[in-house]
């Protein structure tokens, strides 16, 4: 298991940089991870991130499609907020595991 320092806090991450302990996450940490991904977080980003964290905590599956049910953004906006691979980027910034829908 690897560790990384964000905003002065040491956190546990896996080999791909995803948090293994989501409770170590803070908003300040999110901002630093986002910078690594080339994203400046806005309030809308944070709303999406918080929604993803809530979904994760309740044990619900995460997918691109489920974003439409968030009531915050639709899939197209989600792509604009987190360009390229939005779900992978957003979950990394949200400090939760990469969605494991396939394996």
């Amino acid at each position, binding site marked *: 298991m690897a560790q990384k320092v964000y905003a002065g806090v040491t956190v546990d991450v896996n080999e791909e940089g995803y948090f293994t302990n989501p409770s170590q996450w803070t908003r300040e940490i999110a901002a630093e991870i986002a910078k690594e991904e080339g994203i400046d977080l806005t309030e809308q980003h944070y709303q999406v991130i918080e929604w993803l964290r809530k979904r994760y905590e309740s044990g*619900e599956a995460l*997918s691109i*499609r*489920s974003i439409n049910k968030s009531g915050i953004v639709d899939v197209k906006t989600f792509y604009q907020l987190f360009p390229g691979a939005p779900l992978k980027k957003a979950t990394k910034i949200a400090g939760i595991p990469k969605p494991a829908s*396939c394996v």
Partner: protein
Amino acid sequence: MKKILILGAGTAGTIMANKLRKELPREEWKITIVDQEKVHYYQPGFLFIPFGYYKKADVTKPKQSFIPPGVDIYFRKIEQVIPGENKVRLDNGEVLLYDILIIATGTRVSPEETPGLKGELWHKNIFDFYTIEGAQALANFFKTWEGGDLVIDIADDPIKCPVAPLEFAFYADAFFTERGMRNKVNIFYVTPQSGAFTKPRSSKLLGNMLEDKNIKMVNDFVLSEVDNKRKVITDYSGREVHFDCLVSIPLHIGDPGLNDSGLVDEFGFVRADKYTLQSVDFENIFVIGDASNLPTSKAGSVAHFQSEILLENLICYIEGRPFTAKYDGHSNCYIETGYGKAALIDFNYDTEPLPGFFPFPGIGPFSLLKESRINHYGKLIFRWMYWHILLKGKEMPIDTNMTMAGKKTD
């Protein structure tokens, strides 16, 4: 008399019916199984149909022949599951009561959910191979196709048998090479994943194989819509890929009959404990196979490994003891790579597919995460084992929980 009701007589449900009938006394337990289809399809064989290696008759048998004496079978559609009342309503209005419900309704493709996918080119230039109809239509198409852009596209995860689209790509390369027209066919592998597969090592190996076979990979592509006029698929970020023949793996959903049950997530998969296989909502409801929302592959091997766990836990439940069996996410898949070879992967919730030997350390005969001829024979022989051993709930020579023996970790 107590009642166990099994919904679905596919791989998972059939195995459970056989195991439970052997385990539970007939004078105490009535076992009933429901399925809307009379035909049992050997789904791993669908891959071979578009290339003409298998015909429909090679992958079909009557479901009835795999249901043991002492189990009642209803060939009916499920209309509604009412967990609060321990009731299941069928499409003819009949109501079945249960003490224990086992949900084994699997998953199905839902091309209707993607705009344009089931449009005018459906089964003309756009195909799926996850249904018998789609696989047969594609076989016909390939007979006279003169080449162009062949696009294999996974709409989004989760899908059944996550390696099947890769196998299809490898087979397509071999098939068109053998026909002497590979130079006329551009093969694209379009996936929502960032690599060829989900986990790093297998993703690298399989990614290299795609490259060696001159199959172009398009990553992080989540299908948004299909334009039938221009023959392009588009993702949510607006990227486009042109096709002359689209082999689509459409979005997957659970059984629509479960939608109003309160037991399922937004895709229709039953919310269950990933270790015990018990519904998180009702303690007398269990789920097995593709129908669950468990974070493992939707694959026949998973249903098989889960059947051992579920049987043990059902006995615990019946006897009022704490659960003693724990499912570890074990999955085991052959990956057909064409030219009479195959690779094999073996993994679980915590361990990614690793190289090594299977099932016997150092001996094999199967090699993990590596192509070999004997792996391919393993897959071919498996069809016989499926009909004669696996479905009947007999013991298979593979451990239920994954073992690290024979795997190389460095």
